[in-house]
């Protein structure tokens, strides 16, 4: 290295130097998997963090409010002197808005998937699909604005009893938001059905509708159902649309023209009001979030189970 300086170089020194840098590289090389594992572990830490925060504060909540009272209570009055914490109004709000959304998303999403996968020409498919992806990419806050300032007034013009904030309008808009998700997952499942099966049915004289309904859909049913379940999970967890357009009434009702609150909207309302830490109101946030978390987790696991268990391999 420094032969320019005129000093004689010892080969042994060169070897030593080389060894040193090699040693450093080797230790670095050995450290890499550990560092990367540490980074990968952050995702696990996130899950643990979610579970721990939810669990500890939920336990605190159930010290003050009996478990049964929470899950069977039809009254939710979190503020004031005699606060009552029953989660049923929030559960019905969540389930009703989800049901309305799925009434929109399942048929339209499935029909869209069938059209794209079975009927549309390759060229038409390639124009329609990106447009649907745009629909999927619109932030939920924009859908909330749309539900509140357009869909609700529109519905009110022919449903006279509809309140300015109600569960119907955000439910419908949520359904529209979920259409692309159901459509694209179902379409993936249907596209995976091998063409030989279609051709076999067509050769027997079936029409395209019969091929779709009796061959393709049954063959892809695991993926299709999984897409519905994921859609439900998405609807349960959706926040901003309902927070804006459904108001904050905590009445226990099944009337869709009325304002209802979902679990997600409750969380937004309570945190927005900056609940002081340590109060029952603050703990109720975590109990509701825990219920929400369990619901969506069960749905997601169910979807994974369905698509694994009932998958037909070709």
């Amino acid at each position, binding site marked *: 290295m420094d032969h320019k300086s005129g000093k004689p170089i010892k080969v042994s020194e060169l070897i030593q130097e080389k060894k040193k840098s090699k040693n450093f590289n080797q230790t670095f090389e050995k450290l890499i*998997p550990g560092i990367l594992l540490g*980074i990968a572990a952050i*995702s696990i830490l996130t899950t643990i963090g979610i579970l721990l925060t939810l669990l500890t504060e939920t336990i605190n909540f159930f010290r003050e409010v009996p478990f049964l009272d929470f899950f069977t209570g039809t009254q939710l009055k979190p503020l004031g002197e005699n606060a009552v914490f029953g989660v049923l109004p929030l559960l019905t709000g969540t389930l009703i808005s989800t049901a309305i959304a799925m009434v929109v998303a399942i048929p339209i999403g499935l029909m869209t998937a069938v059209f794209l996968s079975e009927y549309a020409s390759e060229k038409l498919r390639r124009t329609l699909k990106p447009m649907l992806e745009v629909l999927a990419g619109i932030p939920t806050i924009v859908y909330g604005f749309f539900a509140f300032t357009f869909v609700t007034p529109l519905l009110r013009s022919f449903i006279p009893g509809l309140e300015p904030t109600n569960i119907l309008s955000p439910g419908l808009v949520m359904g529209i938001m979920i259409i692309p998700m159901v459509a694209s997952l179902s379409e993936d499942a249907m596209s995976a059905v091998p063409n030989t099966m279609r051709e076999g049915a067509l050769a027997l004289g079936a029409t395209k509708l019969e091929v779709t309904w009796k061959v393709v859909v049954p063959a892809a049913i695991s993926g299709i159902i999984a897409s519905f379940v994921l859609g439900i999970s998405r609807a349960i967890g959706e*926040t901003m649309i309902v*927070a804006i357009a459904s108001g904050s009434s905590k009445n226990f009702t099944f009337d869709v023209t009325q304002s209802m609150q979902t679990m997600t909207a409750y969380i937004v309302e309570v945190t927005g009001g900056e609940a002081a830490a340590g109060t029952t109101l603050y703990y109720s946030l*975590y109990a509701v979030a825990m219920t929400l978390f369990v619901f969506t987790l069960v749905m*997601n696991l169910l979807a994974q189970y369905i698509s694994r268990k009932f998958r037909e391999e070709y």
Partner: protein
Amino acid sequence: MKYIDAAQVQKKMGSRLFANNLAKTLFFLATLFGLLVLAVLIYRVLADGLGSLNMGFLTNRLSTDPERAGIMGAILGTLWLMLVVAPVTMILGVGTAIYLEEYAKKGRLQSFIQTNISNLAGVPSVVFGILGLTIFARALDLGSIVLAGGLTMALLVLPVVVVASQEAIRSVPQFLREASYGMGATKWQTVKNVVLPASIPGILTGVILALSRAIGETAPLVVLGIPALLIPLPEGIFDRFTILPVQIYYWTLDSALVAEYANLAAATIVILLIVLFAMNSIAIIIRNKFQKRF
């Protein structure tokens, strides 16, 4: 013996073909329905918002007077937020993907991390907000500052980056790695000099899509207590801030009281959609232009 009764087939043929054509039309209309709603939505937003959209709206600070209100604070807040989310989510996401694809042995740990990531992707964003509120804002006592919001958002979009990076790394053909090993490179040298450069377009696409998701997310930050108040413009990651979607949220809520706020919300949505559209276009350009096919 005849298996097919030709007369019977003939008789039913008409209604079967009719059903087929009817279904085809119905399916097509269903597909159009989604697109129609998209068109109405965009039209409504433009019709409401374009009137309020001018230079003053972009450069003014927040004000209770609809005439003078602007979104400079929300724009800066969004930029600062992205400055936290982008590096954090990229380092965590790409690191996790490299570990899972290149280093982890196929087995329990690897499939555990993988399952965990796909489950995290399904956790509602509002729950991430609670995580951020509890850990970053309260336990670490950061409060509602850019750093707390950015870390929360980074964890929320992490699965998107991990999955996209994994796909990109997986699509690098094995012979490139083998050639690298064959020339005496170590595993890390191979990853650093061969695998990552080859998969960078896919990774970047994933990161941009994750960022565009983060830009539009509202719920976690509302839960974190991000206000839409008259606060000073954020000047760094330790300042309190607001972002475009949160601004839209409060203006929409208040439009029941002051009707002009609905127009301000719509104008902000126009800006938000333009930003999202630009980001997605960049992602698509990167994907199409730099994606090497091996």
